[in-house]
């Protein structure tokens, strides 16, 4: 029996929700709009909303002048690399914890989660020092490994909660039919685990893409991803709103789109399965 609502009530709900929704979204909308303006229109008083000469000029300038491509490539490589490494390490671990739980499985899981709580600033200098000593400062590989490590607990947890939903009987049946451990993983488990792995990859790609402590502190010119590139706009240059907007729009657009697909996984991933 569904709750019955009057049409009037529904109209009020709709109006209220849309108003608030648009208000919350407005800074993003404004950034996107500004990215199509000229610099003069961008700071026009009173502000211009929709009726201006739409132009792709800012995108052209940003793409041409600032090595935008390299920053973008760094973001893709670092975020992508970190989740691939993370998955390679996490799948076996999550698999064994979900299907062959031992006495200490729960403690290990919670301990892994606790490493996620370690404040980055508390280990900033040691990591910085290790990076200098190993020649990893401002390198993609170094940052990839760091991002893999900070997201590894979430990856393991998410995979664990997904794997636990796979019925164990299926694995037993495969085992009875004489499947080896390897066959069991490749032919039985993997196909069933693909959706869970995909959502895990998606959410952690977003987290890695937006990470802004290590990416700001461990990179300079060579390995800097988009977070650091955007931060370089922080010097007072009020005349570059339109270009800042174009650069920002390009940095957040792919993630906004991916993010909208991952709403459900977001809840599970970021509450470590405690809210579903």
């Amino acid at each position, binding site marked *: 029996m569904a709750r019955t609502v009057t049409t009037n009530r529904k109209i009020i709900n709709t109006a209220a929700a849309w108003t608030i929704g648009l208000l919350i979204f407005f800074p993003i909308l404004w950034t996107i709009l500004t990215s199509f303006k000229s610099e003069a229109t961008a700071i026009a008083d009173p502000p211009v909303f929709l009726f201006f000469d739409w132009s792709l000029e800012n995108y052209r300038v940003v793409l041409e002048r600032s090595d935008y491509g390299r920053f973008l490539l760094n973001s893709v490589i670092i975020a992508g690399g970190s989740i691939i490494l993370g998955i390679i390490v996490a799948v076996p671990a999550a698999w064994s914890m979900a299907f062959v739980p031992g006495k200490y499985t729960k403690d290990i899981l919670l301990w892994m989660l606790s490493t996620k709580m370690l404040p980055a600033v508390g280990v900033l200098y040691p990591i910085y020092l290790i990076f200098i000593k190993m020649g990893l400062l401002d390198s993609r590989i170094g940052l990839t490994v760091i991002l893999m490590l900070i997201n590894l607990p979430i990856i393991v947890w998410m995979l664990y909660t997904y794997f636990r939903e796979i019925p164990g009987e299926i694995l037993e049946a495969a085992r009875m039919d004489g499947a080896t451990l390897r066959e069991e993983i490749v032919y039985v488990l993997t196909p069933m685990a693909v959706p869970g792995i995909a959502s895990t990859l998606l959410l952690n790609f977003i987290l890695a893409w937006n990470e*802004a402590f290590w990416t700001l502190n461990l990179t300079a010119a060579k390995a800097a991803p988009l977070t650091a590139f955007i931060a370089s706009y922080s010097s007072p240059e009020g005349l570059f709103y339109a270009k800042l907007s174009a650069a920002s729009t390009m940095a*957040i657009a792919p993630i906004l789109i991916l993010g909208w697909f991952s709403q459900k996984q977001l809840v599970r991933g970021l509450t470590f399965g405690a809210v579903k």
Partner: protein
Amino acid sequence: MATHQSRSAARLMMAPAVVLLLGWMLVPLSMTLYFSFKKYLPLRGGDLGWVGLENYTRFVTSSAFWPSVQATLVIVGAVLVITIVLGILLAMLLDQPMWGQGIVRILVIAPFFVMPTVSALVWKNMFMDPVNGLFAHLWQFFGLAPIEWLSQASMTSIIMIVSWQWLPFATLILLTAIQSLDGEQMEAAEMDGAPALSKFFHLVLPHMARAITIVVLIQMIFLLSIFAEIFVTTQGSFGTRTLTYLIYQRVLESQNVGLGSAGGIFAVILANIIAIFLMRIVGKNLDA
């Protein structure tokens, strides 16, 4: 069901993740602990020997320490209150029947996916700039003098930016919790003629208690270490220097590693106190 053989295989499969995380935790943390007992100035003489607890006492007694603790608590507290209160209201609204619910949800969640440096810079330049920002235009429209947000109302500004980033998270989690509320129970309450307010306090709020606790704890962990939002806006000036930012400045800007490391240990202890509570809740859920 597990044989001896599969148990050892399981251990082997867990090993890489466990070893990596163990190394990630122990190596840098013990280095920080080690540095915290030393006078260590990489650019001014390097390792100048053991100093016992001097770094700790100096860090705590420095004039910057208590203001930074205060700034941290104010930001974390204010953002928590704003995101939880607005998050509950917004989640309840989004739970109502309406047209275009999916789209509204997307609009509300979007800020969470914006990278911190982008949201901080967009707010700083396009909204809070005292000359060209939208707020300045809005204030002028009403005949008011524009505010220099990031200097005159620096804390309010940071709190606004960070709340904007985290409101979607709170809303989404709380909405998920509300949606699992038993519809029949609500109906029974409605049929009994329970007033909306009492329905909220006796039914909705208790049902959401656990989700709220989780949101508070998870946000605390992330909020205690906000960095980019301050880095690209005030750089810690105008009273916005949080504990995290203070430690960052000690370590990387003034390269006083010993002092910064002592601060780092404080931050680790603080985070662990919160983490213990979060672990308890998550752990309980694991048994269920």
